[in-house]
């Protein structure tokens, strides 16, 4: 199925592929009540008004469009797109340190445009870290689109992947994570996003704190047509944080991350791709680790 879609997209062009996207967005709008409910709950917060059907449609279409564009980006068809990049100076300054850094994004916009930008403009390679099951799924998908792209995904889960991640950083590399979802038993922090507390996982930030690296926020927002706006914002720097101050620094970083999510959700509301109840209360009380 994915191979067929990839073939249509690459042979018949982006415009033909996008006709299919309208069908996909319509399908979700009509036949996916759970996603529709999640979309409506989110859009009410982000837009500050009751969402209309066309808002929901726009939301699903944006999601489908970014996934579709991944086919081109993974195949290096950068000339099809118009990227505007904000905050590149910050990124370059921190990279010049040579000790690597973390890029933390969210299910907000497209992270593939950021990886693509790295490949196009520099020899910078962003290795995305994600939970093992997702890593396998994504690797299978990338293999269908472009076999060369596979190696840039690190599956999280046990000590090997953590050591691999550290080796990447030691080589001055960039490690990307989507820090808005938890893979499982993680310590959660309640932080306000769009006016209501959401529970964010602490794992990504604990990892960055433990490995004492700078963290830069990233998002690749889809603006419609062939336009993307890529943003890099300084988020935290754990380079000099001692062990005793680590928990407080992690907490501050999560608060800053939440504020950035809040900001970009309001700026580009249709780019939020968490189609589930993101603001649900934590299943059990999970206080931060003592000490």
């Amino acid at each position, binding site marked *: 199925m994915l191979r067929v879609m990839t073939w249509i997209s690459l042979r018949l062009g982006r415009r033909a592929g996008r006709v299919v996207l309208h069908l996909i967005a319509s399908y979700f709008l009509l036949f996916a009540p759970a996603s529709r409910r999640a979309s409506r709950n989110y859009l009410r917060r982000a837009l500050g008004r009751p969402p209309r059907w066309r808002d929901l449609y726009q939301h699903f279409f944006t999601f489908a469009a970014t996934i579709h564009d991944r086919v081109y980006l993974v195949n290096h068809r950068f000339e099809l797109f118009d990227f505007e990049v904000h905050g590149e100076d910050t990124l370059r300054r921190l990279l010049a340190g040579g000790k690597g850094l973390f890029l933390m994004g969210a299910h907000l916009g497209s992270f593939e445009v950021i990886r693509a930008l790295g490949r196009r403009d520099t020899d910078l390679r962003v290795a995305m870290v994600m939970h093992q099951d997702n890593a396998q799924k994504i690797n299978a998908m990338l293999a269908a689109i472009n076999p060369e792209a596979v190696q840039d995904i690190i599956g999280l889960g*046990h*000590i090997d*992947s953590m*050591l691999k991640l*550290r080796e990447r950083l030691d080589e001055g590399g960039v490690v990307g994570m989507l820090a808005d979802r938890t893979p499982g038993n*993680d310590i959660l922090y309640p932080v306000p996003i769009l006016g209501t507390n959401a529970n964010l996982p602490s*794992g990504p930030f604990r990892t960055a704190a*433990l490995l004492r690296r700078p963290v830069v926020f990233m998002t690749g927002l889809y603006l419609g047509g062939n336009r993307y706006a890529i943003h890099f914002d300084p988020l935290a720097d754990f380079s000099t944080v001692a062990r005793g101050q680590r928990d407080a620094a992690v907490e501050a970083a999560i608060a800053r991350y939440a504020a950035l999510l809040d900001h970009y959700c309001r700026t580009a509301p249709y780019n939020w791709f968490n189609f589930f109840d993101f603001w649900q209360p934590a299943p059990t009380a999970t206080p931060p680790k003592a000490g």
Partner: protein
Amino acid sequence: MQDNQKPTVSSTAALQREVAELMIECLNLEVTADQITPDAPLYGDGLGLDSIDVLEAALEVSKRYGLQLRSDSEDNKHIFSSLRSLSDYIAAQRTR
């Protein structure tokens, strides 16, 4: 490199205790060294560590005993499965 060889040296109770204390201190665990059974799993049900905790312990242990940990070593899963296997590995590979 001896990375892929199974350690042939068994750790002593004293070393196991030392490693347990190192982990308790570095991870702020609310147990005493006596309470950590050598064969209980470090992950999940045993000590309840997650992969970030295990990484922290791994970094601490490698610094203390001069070990070279590598991501492509096939034994990592075994080494970090319990206090005993970790201590056995240290006993076999330590450089200080």
